[in-house]
């Protein structure tokens, strides 16, 4: 198993970013959800807007809702999405 996590984006986030999934290399500075979010906000353009702004973004680790301080490890499936609107 490589030192990667899959990162998935849904709904308006997916459209704004023009990306529905990617693999991310874990480093010592990337060990929680918060770290990943900060890392993504350092990218240019819409990434900075989406992850560096005040938008309410929900996140999940391995298909369970997860808070920002949740630890992540190699092989995890991480997801970011806007507040849900089903039903």
């Amino acid at each position, binding site marked *: 198993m490589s030192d990667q996590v899959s990162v998935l984006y849904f709904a308006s986030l997916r459209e704004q970013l023009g990306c529905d999934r990617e693999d991310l290399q874990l480093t010592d500075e990337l060990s929680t959800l918060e770290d990943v979010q900060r890392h993504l906000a350092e990218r240019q353009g819409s990434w900075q807007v989406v992850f560096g702004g005040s938008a309410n973004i929900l996140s999940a680790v391995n298909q369970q809702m997860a808070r920002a301080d949740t630890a992540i490890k190699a092989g995890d499936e991480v997801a970011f999405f806007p507040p*849900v609107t089903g039903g």
Partner: protein
Amino acid sequence: MQTEDFSIDEIHSELRQRAGDCGAIVSFVGLVREFDEDASIQSMTLEHYPGMTEKALADIADKASQRWSLGGISIIHRVGTLAAGDQIVVVATASAHRRDAFEAAEFIMDYLKTDAPFWKKERTSQGERWVEQRHSDLSSTERWHK
């Protein structure tokens, strides 16, 4: 999760067979509105998170089963593109006691609205837009926390 429409009759029949001796069945059906904030809705597309959505719904059903005495629960949520007036979701609960069936169905809908990964995009007379979560949906779920 399914793209096809569902029949409320079939859901009731299936639940009655599965639930055993229950005197009460409560069902909620959610429909695509024809108007939203004065814009007429031409169609609506429902996106979900395959894998997580199933887990989230199973988790909500489990919570309801622990809290109330239920003979059975059915949840069907459609995904894909729907037209105004189409059925989106059905939640049905069977119980020996009507209050349990009512409360459990409402609990499941409230949690589904805040915890299950579905997103609606409307195609209206004024263009496309992602539906925003309403604050009232969050407070509906919060009232079950006590």
